[in-house]
């Protein structure tokens, strides 16, 4: 319905930012996931946003994964440690992930505010017909 365009467009923004928060939470959850040095490390997920196909709003164009290289940490007591005593941790920066999380949260709230404001505007227009 075309009169609810503003709400629909803001809704796509909310969806994209929710998926961004999902990706960040996945990254943060796996930040301490250790693997053998012979195996690939957890690859950080990054959401790529793009303009929606119909030109109204935004959408997730895809998920780009980071490097599987990881960083080698010397932990000889770790059960997964190799002969030299090294394990592999994913190459994720906690502070940048937290920053991304806050950006996603603020963008989510901004889109919700757009919906609220549009709804109030439409309700105000309906007040014209009363009284």
């Amino acid at each position: 319905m075309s009169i609810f365009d503003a709400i629909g467009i803001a809704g796509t923004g909310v969806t994209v930012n929710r998926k961004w928060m999902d990706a960040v939470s996945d990254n943060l959850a796996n930040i301490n996931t250790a693997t053998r040095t012979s195996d690939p490390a957890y690859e950080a997920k990054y959401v790529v946003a793009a303009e929606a196909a119909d030109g109204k709003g935004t959408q997730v164009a895809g998920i780009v994964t980071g490097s599987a290289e990881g960083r080698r940490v010397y932990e000889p007591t770790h059960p997964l440690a190799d002969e030299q005593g090294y394990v592999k941790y994913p190459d994720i920066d906690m502070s940048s992930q937290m920053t991304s999380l806050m950006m996603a949260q603020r963008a989510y709230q901004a889109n919700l505010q757009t919906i609220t404001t549009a709804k109030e505007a439409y309700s105000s227009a309906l007040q014209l017909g009363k009284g």
Partner: protein
Amino acid sequence: MSIESIGGVGDVANTLGTLATGYGQGIADTDNAQMTSAIGGGSGVSYTGSVAPVTVTGTAGVGASTPVGGSSGTDFASLLSGGLDKLQGLQSTSDDLALKAATGDLTNVHDYMIASNEAQLATQLTVAVRNKAVDAFNEIMRMQV
């Protein structure tokens, strides 16, 4: 429920028909307003251009009070039934999402809230339009003949 079918009211009913026709064109034009172009880097020109004729058409139709009688414009009844159809669609979307929310299949919480808000707003809009139509009808029925 065609308003033109009111017997014995004559010109007044025709005037209301004109009003409804003008209103119908106004809504049809608004539907055609290039919202996408305005958002996609377009200027406000298309928006202004589409709004201005609406005002002119509406005012001319009501002010002149000439019977339109079977004009090509959308009549109020089909306009109302189209609006009810759209409302039905929004309500069923909202109901589907409510079911998903209840069964735990809802991935996007905001989707349901948006759908229910849209359904609520559309209902209020439809009720407001209906009340206005009933008011106009009552006004005609109160008229001294």
